[in-house]
């Protein structure tokens, strides 16, 4: 059941589709701050997956139409076990179908841009060959990068906020501003006209 407060705007014919997945957004400072900063931009369609589909029953047609209608697909999520939260994975599994997103006849996303914005609990140091997570963020995001590649999408440099839990309000505000600028830069040039 969709709710009026899900923050879904009327579908744009172009611009950024910002898809957020956080199962407990009410407890997340970083993701809330980031989402708030980006969703006010004109040309950004905001979609909160856990708010739209609390029962995990995803409306595939609506989601595919939203994807088709945008030039940029932005995925925002906290890194859970080096991957996306469950509902975002479910959304990818169910919506990015063969014949739609990839494979024969699957050209709906071709030429679009994929942008990943991700928060982590641990500091940047942990995501290093010598850190306790042993791999870089680039390496952890490879599955998504390859997803974009398979769908014929352009892979934009990811936006990562490390140590999201330990940042103070001022630091978070700075990250949010940086995020807003980054999302704005993804918007097609015609918004300037």
């Amino acid at each position, binding site marked *: *059941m969709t*709710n009026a407060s*899900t923050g879904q705007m009327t579908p744009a014919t172009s611009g950024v589709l910002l898809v957020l997945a956080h*199962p*407990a*957004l*009410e*407890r997340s400072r970083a993701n809330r701050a980031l989402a708030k900063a980006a969703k006010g931009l004109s040309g950004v369609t905001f979609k909160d997956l*856990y*708010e*739209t589909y*609390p*029962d995990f029953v995803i409306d595939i047609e609506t989601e595919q139409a939203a994807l088709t209608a945008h030039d940029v697909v932005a995925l925002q999520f906290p890194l*859970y076990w080096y991957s996306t939260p469950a509902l975002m994975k479910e959304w990818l599994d169910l919506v990015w179908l063969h014949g739609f997103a990839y494979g024969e006849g699957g050209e709906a996303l071709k030429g679009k841009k994929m942008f990943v914005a991700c928060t982590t*609990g*641990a*500091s940047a*140091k942990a995501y290093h060959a010598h850190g306790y997570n042993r791999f870089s963020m680039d390496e952890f995001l490879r599955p998504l990068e390859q997803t974009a590649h398979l769908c014929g999408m352009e892979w934009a440099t990811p936006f990562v906020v490390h*140590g999201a*839990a*330990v940042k103070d309000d001022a630091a978070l505000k700075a990250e949010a501003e940086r995020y807003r600028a980054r999302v704005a830069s993804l918007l097609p040039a015609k918004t300037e006209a």
Partner: protein
Amino acid sequence: MENILTQTLVYLGAAVVSVPIAKRLGLGSVLGYLIAGVLIGPFALSLVGDQADVMKFAEFGVVILLFLIGLEVQPSTLWDMRKAIFGLGGAQVVGTALTIAAAALAFGLPWQTALAVGLVLAMSSTAIVLQTLDEKGLRQGPVGRAAFGVLLLQDLAVIPLFALLPLLAISAPQHAAEAGGHGGSLVATLPVWAQTLSVLAAVAAVVGGGRYLVRPLFRFIAKARLREIFTASALLIVVAVASLMQTVGLSPALGAFLAGVVLAESEFRRELETDIEPFRGLLLGLFFMTVGAGVDLPLVARQPLTLVGLVLGLMVLKFLVMYGIARLFGAPKRGALAVATALAQGGEFAFVLLTFTVGAGVIGAQLAALLTAAIAVSMALTPVAMILYERVAALMDAAIPDVTPDTGDFDEGEPDIIIAGFGRFGQITGRLLAANGFKSTVLDSDIEQIELLRRFGRRVHYGDATRLDLLRQAGADRARMLIVALDDREKTVELVETARKAFPDLTILARAWDRRHAYDLLSNGADAVERETFESALALGSTALQKLGFRAHRAHRAAAFFRRHDRRMFEELRPMWGQEEAYMLASRDAAQTMDRLLNADLHRMRPGDAGGAWDTASLDEELRERAQQEGAD
């Protein structure tokens, strides 16, 4: 005339004694009735005198039979079965009539008589065949479908036969006014055009009345909730139609058939079937007894060989023709064998037609008496023939190990699910099941509700689901599941209990009023229950949480968490139920535990309960410590 009580005593007594014996011996009930009839008849024990007036009464069994057949024949079914009815049935009637007529010609009968004999003997016995197939479980398969189609065409063919047979008259009609026991036609003296007109008017009255008069009448009676009056009105319909048809000189049985077809689409079909069924059985039994009593034993005794020849000739010819036609129509060998065996006897309409042809001067009385006896014997031999068929079929199976069995494809009437009660609750469940491709039969006793649903194009039958016979009619012995969604608490328990006893393999799901009712239903045999307000209350609660500021996913989880704990509590308290004090204590305790757990979830998600995975407090602390260390490095 003898005392009517004595007569009743003799008939009922004979039936009660001989039918169970015949059934025990594997001969079928029809044979039991026939033998009982022969025994009490004027030519054996002579316990009953002239059975002519009983015969009139007994023929009503045939009328009711045709009414019931009509009820089963929805126009859509007719259309689906057009090949079986008009192809197979038409070929059988024409083929059999001509073959038998040819044989009769060969024995030196004039061609008119020969043709009449052929036409009369082409009829098979609807009553015997349907009953035999039912008893053998063949009714719903391709065999049953083919046989039913043929029988239906034969029954329909009786109408034109009444018109055609007099044209074959070779001697002056004896007493045409009394034609075939269908005497008393008030229109016989009218000019032909007026007769035709009255026939058309009568048919129109049956169709129109059935559509616009009878259904409102049934609705009115159903609202009164008087079961016996419903039965009475059902009988009234049949009697009224039969007498109307008789008045205009048509066959009452066919009128009843027509009335049945008209009512087949109505919501009262199941209830009508159930109510009329017992009368059909008894009256048909009476009919067969009168036929048995009518067998002229002295005549048969004088010409035993002729009779044996007639019976064998009749059955063999009918069998061969039907077998050939069935094969021509693409039936497999075994199926053709079964249909041909089942239909190889004379029918009850043959008796009626014989009397009629004697009256019309087509067939001589002597010959008619012989044929009557032959038909009766051939009917009696049908169960024996079916036993023979089964032997042969078993041999065929043994000879060809991979023979394809008769898989019933005629299963349109077989519901997966029976839904009792189609109010606010049953409808939602029903829609979900229907949307997923399950066939359901729906019973409801609220006539206003049914009217409303019918307007939305839903098929709902009127009936009190707590009646075991009606449940059986609805197919409870073959269905996979019974869903009880009655509004009445006590009736729900009653129905669950009845259904559990009668159909041990049926899965029974029931809608419970509250927790106590749910326990009641479970201990009376329900496989699963759902408290009627539980899920919707949870849904509303979840919406309330959202409106109070919870995010949707969290509200959803809170409801899911509550549901899980409540269901656990439901199971844990079940053994305590019935011991008032212990149950109270335990339930208070459980409620407190649940509040505690839910509160804990609210303030701080507990690992393993609800969303511990996202509880980052401890993790945050650890990360903060680590950050400090790193800063110190």
